[in-house]
């Protein structure tokens, strides 16, 4: 479902395949665990083929939890379709979204 890379104290999560209710929930749990050893996580959507509103809901839930922890969550490398989902729901105003991994890490 996802790979993790350590990048100078920041974790980069590379999500693969579909993000739906089931995979989204697993992804949320997995990423929340990463905050035990990191203050900032970047999620790369480069490998995401499909995402639906249930998956999106899990990502919103993840952000809520991250904000409670007073830690940082950034998103990057979205396809035009995934980006459009964030724009359509207005969530592009809620999340920190970057075009590239380098910008998100910067």
């Amino acid at each position: 479902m996802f790979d993790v890379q350590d990048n100078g104290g920041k974790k980069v999560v590379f999500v693969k395949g579909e993000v739906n209710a089931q995979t989204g929930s697993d992804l949320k749990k997995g990423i929340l665990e990463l905050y035990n050893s990191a203050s900032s996580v970047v999620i790369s959507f480069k490998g995401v083929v499909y995402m639906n509103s249930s998956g999106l809901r899990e990502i919103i839930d993840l952000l809520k939890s991250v904000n409670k922890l007073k830690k940082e969550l950034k998103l990057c490398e979205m396809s035009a379709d995934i980006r459009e989902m964030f724009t359509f729901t207005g969530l592009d105003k809620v999340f920190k979204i970057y075009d590239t991994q380098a910008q998100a890490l910067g």
Partner: protein
Amino acid sequence: MSYKFTRYGDFLKIMVEQDAPFKDLEDAAREIVNLKDLKRISLDLKNCYYIQSKALAALIAMKKNSIKIGAEFIVSNVCDNVYQVMEMANLTSYFTIEEDFSSYTSDELMEKFFQPDYADRVSDFIAGSYSDEFRAKLLEILEMPEPELKFYAILTMGKAHDYSAEERIKKELDSDIPLIVKASVLVLGWFGDSGSKEKIYQVLETGNEEVAEAAAASISLLSDESDAERLGRLLSSHSKVIRIAAIQAMTLINDDTCFGLLKDALDKEQEDDVKAVLIRAVSSFNKAGVSDILIKGLDSKSIKIREASAGGLAKIKAKDKLEDIISRITDTDAWVGYFAVKACGEICSATEAERLMSSYDKVEENVKLAIVDALGKIPGDFSDFYMTILDNGNEDIRKEVLSSLLHDNKENAKEAAINLFANDSSWIVRYKALEILEQIRPEGFRDMLMARLTVDDSKYVKDKIQAVLEEI
């Protein structure tokens, strides 16, 4: 003294009063060298609406003295008037100029919601540094009559995840002002407030264009198993706005029921632009049969549907339908060929690109142009083919070919650009050739430019030649 130093650890903020005498600024600059352990110094011009040009020397001294003590120097909150003075003195690139909303009071920040250039950034800042003071101000705004302020106040509370404001935001769903309803609908969707879903359906069913999309988005975020069927019923609404909003919500929900209902709607829908939205929606589902629907759409009489179908085939990279797509390149309707080629650009490999090149002589101009564009997207070196079509009568094709040549084979691009820069009848092509030569910088480039400068009859090409000559 018309300036004030405030230190926050290794960060120093220098606040300057309005009409600060330049002598005071000079004093401030001198003081910097005596400071220790600073990493960043910010000169905040929030209160300065004008600056004397001689005061700029003091700003330069501040930067120099900051560097001397090893600190970065920035100038923040520069208003348009001051920026213009700095621009006239060529200093805008010398200084790092930033916005620092932390210098503003909460009232001043709320006022910035009225300024479209600032509103989004101010909202982000408030959400990022949310406090009880900000919360109280935003709630105050919700009692005011100004729609713009209320819109940003609601969005800001949403961005800040202020769930304690949920009940207050819900009340705004009854507002007469679509902008306010839109903000409330979006935020309640972000909050996952399922209790508002019924009300949001009512908002969608008004068919008001300004709020329907937001309602569709939030319904999808709040959806459960029952929503696909309910949205499906809206696909037969008399209102086009409602039908499109329902399609958008169902695309986001993206389950089996939604797919089945959208597929059925494609057979019943009468309006071409809604059908095109349906085609795009269907292409977002990872289901068997999607590519068949899209191939069928490629033969539609409607250009909008053909475009949506080609886009869909490219999006799903329909390799299994490549033969069907390629066979349409030479269709008697040139637009079918055009969209088929568009899809090929995203799907074909170098081997299959041969089929595009062999079709080139059999198709009309718009398809020819699409072939050159598609080849540019396919990995491989097609420069031999490009060299054979450089004499095409269409200037757009010659221009496009030059760009593709540069991508595939720099040596051939150089040869072609030198020839077309000197001889092509179209200034658009000569201009493109010049852009390519500017990148390659061939031997004798300067002489080539000088020779062309005297004979070229295009103002645009001459201006470009002058600019390149100055640069080299």
